[in-house]
């Protein structure tokens, strides 16, 4: 499916945040924005959120569900779950290494 979110420039971090938000079930844009703010402390601007959503959807990592009450929920696909897991494992490896080095410095 082409390149991983890591190469999406300013959309790479929002992409991981969005996929993490969708990991426990479908959400629409507003719910995602609030969820990301609560678990990551990051307030995504609407255009950044939808720029990342469009990239994730066109690459099949998330899928739009039919509109409910004028809002469209998004679902993490199986492929998206795999990509998210790989990204989070890489981030964990970086975090563990960084923390260990800080502790021993």
């Amino acid at each position, binding site marked *: *499916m082409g390149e991983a979110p890591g190469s999406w420039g300013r959309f790479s971090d929002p992409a991981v945040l969005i996929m993490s938000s969708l990991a426990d079930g479908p959400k*629409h*844009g*507003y719910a995602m*924005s609030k969820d990301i703010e609560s678990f990551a402390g990051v307030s995504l*601007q*609407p*255009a*950044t*959120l*939808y*720029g990342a*959503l*469009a*990239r994730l*959807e*066109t690459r*099949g990592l998330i*899928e*739009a*569900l*039919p*509109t*409910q*009450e*004028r*809002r*469209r929920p998004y*679902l993490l*696909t199986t492929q998206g779950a795999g990509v998210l897991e790989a990204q989070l494992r890489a981030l964990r490896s970086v975090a563990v290494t960084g923390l260990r080095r800080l502790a021993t410095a």
Partner: protein
Amino acid sequence: MTAGIESRAERVAGALVRLYPRPWRDRYGSELLDLLAAAPVTPPLLLDLARGALDARLHLHQLLKGSARMTTRLRSVAITTFAAWVLFCFAASGVAKSTEDLTFAEVGHAHPAIAAGRLVAEFALGLSLAAVVVGGLPLMAGVARQAWRRRDPSAIRLLVVPPVAGAIVLAATVLLGRIRVGPVRSTVDTVAFLGWIALTAAAAAVSVLAVAASVRRSDLSVGTLRAAAWAAAAAAAAMTFGLLAGAGYGLAVWTTTPALFHSANGILATPLPATWTAALIGALVAVATADRAALRGLAELRAAA
């Protein structure tokens, strides 16, 4: 921020959203505006919108066009396969009607290859029905859910068309079965039978058109459309298999019992070869259409993988 400045900022935000390319706005515009309505319009937000519009124009335009094209094509694959399957059923029912005479069952007992050919053709028809149901039910459930949620009278009317058309055909069938409109093969009887065929064909055509319009105007998930494309490919394969088995059955009847093959067992006591030729042409058109749609659908699925 005063009301005047706020409304000016909102107008600027709205103008920036209009800078996005049309496919992007068609797909995400209403969702973005919904989110903007809940956010205070600040300079960083306006800057984010301007950068987003530029990014959409530079990077996302072609991707979105491709994505929209895929869903349109998958819808078309589902609709075309359903229409082809209905035509295939018509052709199959013509063969079934012309072979309802007990002589055909006796020929089947005498020649196991003939019985096997018929059984395989019926099995393939059953498989195609299963594929149409498996792929079509989630599609129509999605269409019905949306029509109900939106309280859209025209969408609900479209959904009512197939059951109403089916009920009319059923009522006409029961009526014709109970009321003898004239002696068998009399002019009145023949006209009544031809009228029933025309009514059934019209009901099927109207139902297919209603289903097509419903699917085209509904907002269906890509997952449902992909599943429908796989089901369409399965239906097309089963129909191809059924056509080959049916043609084999006809050839076996021709070679083993030429007298029966050339009998007047066709529709309205016409020569059997005429009915079977018409059914074969109908089935060939249906299978060719379904196979072409299935190949298109598989190509879209492969391109998206």
